[in-house]
């Protein structure tokens, strides 16, 4: 299980000069496939069949370096941060704060003060809704989201609008699963206080033109929050290039551990926001009469954080940093294209989400067969996919389906696994068609 040669694997991942890796990886996936050995969980059997893990949009698997980093932290450095003067506490604090700097670099934020550690994307959105939202949104104002949002980018805004008597407005999409930009333009009004959009749709795979959409919102002086849960593992994210005001993402979808995520916010916005939760670490001084809040980013980080998780996230960022991300994106796209083309050959299979720009998500239905049955039959074949509404019921409603089957890819997946998926779908149709 731990048998791979790390030195050798490191060689595989090293970026060669120029675009050689990109060209070679597309022509010769072996370069990327070497990475598969870094993920110990993938090498097991389910129901007597080799595991085919195609549920990466739900959560990704973790490379050994991430698991090792967390284990090392708990074995050698575990201590509470920002508190003790003792050796271990200082070590743990340094390690944790180094991760913040890695995150800053990973998304190209302007300063570490703009990187707030949270539990995940959901908490990040809730943080913005209940601090920025609660102070900026008033009765009659509008919050603008889109039809393809995950429930976690709908419900926090719905709660806020309910409290404030504000209105939740929704950017519609077409039947390919692409947002209608001319409708979006019309929905940006003097009453719009914030726009909250998925960078990549979890249910459809659509990559939204977020840079353009941010520019459009900014022309009206409206800030934009992006839900980056699905984009962080697949795309290079540059928050200053996109110019978004908030960016939220989760460690566990980008090969790090669960329970830790990031909220990026522009400093001037974070500075003006009230605290999210009260407690330790977010204060400078406390008396019964008055509390002086801490500086950014700590003001938004009450309580002992998920330190071990943070360390794991840092290792995941280091790992991704050693990959040629463009080659990874091109390879994942090749898997997606191959799977899409093959599944479309079956009569009765309908792909849900056919946007021109897509990332790694293949949602589909088979006429007359419920997605739950597809999921069970594939599971017996050792193939893990997600079935259901993907926490995006409005998307299901748009396409008139109760649920879909969703295969989602990572760079450690192979063309052979796409073939296994196709064989599995053939079996589903044989059994239930």
């Amino acid at each position: 299980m731990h048998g791979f040669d790390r030195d050798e694997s490191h060689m595989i991942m090293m970026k060669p000069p120029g675009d050689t890796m990109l060209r070679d990886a597309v022509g010769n996936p072996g370069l990327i496939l070497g990475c598969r050995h870094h993920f110990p969980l993938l090498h097991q059997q389910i129901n007597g069949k080799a595991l085919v893990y195609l549920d990466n949009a739900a959560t990704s698997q973790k490379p050994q370096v991430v698991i090792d980093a967390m284990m090392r932290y708990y074995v050698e450095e575990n201590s509470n941060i920002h508190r003790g003067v003792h050796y271990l506490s200082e070590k743990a604090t340094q390690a944790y704060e180094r991760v913040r700097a890695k995150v800053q670099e990973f998304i190209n934020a302007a300063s570490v003060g703009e990187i707030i550690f949270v539990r995940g994307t959901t908490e990040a959105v809730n943080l913005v809704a209940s601090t920025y939202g609660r102070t900026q949104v008033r009765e009659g104002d509008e919050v603008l989201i889109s039809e393809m949002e995950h429930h976690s980018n709908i419900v926090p805004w719905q709660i806020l609008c309910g409290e404030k008597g504000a209105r939740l407005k929704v950017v519609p999409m077409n039947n390919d699963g692409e947002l209608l930009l001319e409708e979006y333009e019309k929905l940006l009004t003097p009453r719009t206080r914030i726009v909250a959009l998925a960078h990549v749709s979890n249910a459809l795979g659509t990559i939204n033109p977020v840079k353009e959409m941010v520019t459009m919102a900014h022309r009206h002086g409206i800030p934009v929050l992006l839900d980056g849960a699905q984009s962080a593992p697949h795309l290079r994210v540059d928050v200053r290039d996109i110019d978004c005001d908030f960016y939220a993402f989760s460690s566990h979808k980008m090969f790090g551990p669960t329970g830790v995520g990031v909220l990026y916010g522009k400093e001037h916005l974070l500075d003006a926001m009230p605290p999210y939760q009260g407690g330790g670490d977010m204060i400078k001084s406390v008396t019964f009469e008055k509390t002086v809040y801490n500086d950014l980013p700590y003001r938004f980080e009450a309580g002992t954080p998920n330190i071990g998780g943070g360390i794991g996230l840092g290792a995941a960022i280091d790992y991704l940093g050693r990959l040629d991300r463009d080659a990874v994106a091109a390879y994942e796209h090749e898997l997606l294209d191959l799977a899409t083309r093959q599944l479309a050959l079956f009569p009765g299979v309908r792909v849900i989400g056919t946007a021109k720009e897509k990332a790694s998500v293949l949602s589909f239905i088979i006429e007359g067969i419920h997605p739950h049955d597809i999921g069970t039959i594939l599971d017996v074949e050792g193939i893990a996919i997600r079935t259901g509404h993907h926490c995006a019921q409005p998307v299901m409603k748009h396409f008139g389906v109760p649920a879909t089957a969703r295969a989602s890819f990572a760079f450690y997946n192979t063309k052979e696994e796409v073939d296994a998926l196709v064989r599995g779908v053939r079996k589903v149709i044989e059994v239930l068609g």
Partner: protein
Amino acid sequence: MTDLRDLYQEVILDHNKSPRNFHVMDGADRSVEGYNPLCGDHYTLYLKLRKGIIQDVSFTGVGCAISKASASVMTSLVKGKTSAEAVQMFRDFHSLVRGETDLGGSLDHFGKLAAFSGVSEFPARVKCASLAWHTLRAALEAKEQVVSTE
């Protein structure tokens, strides 16, 4: 190793393809919705009760093969039974799909319900199999609200 045919037995495939008593019922005494929000199984069960006996029962709706076949088999089995007999059947069925019944013994008294014995190997599907039965029990108890297996 789990075999697919343990779950998708012939009876289930047949009732999924050609569900029995699959229609709206005019003049039903009671109609109750059953809904599993996780997977979107959504049925309406119609019931005619006369002196504690299920005189007629039917259903409509959409869902997976397991939930639909279970609803279909259930309607064909409980027709003509008393409320108490139907509730007892549900208890037996529930213990069968939850793997609490000794499968080494005879399943003869289960009749068609025995086709659902394989469900116990698939814990995620127990809710699918029992949705219609939960809905029936609510209808017998004259509960009006939507029944959910979540």
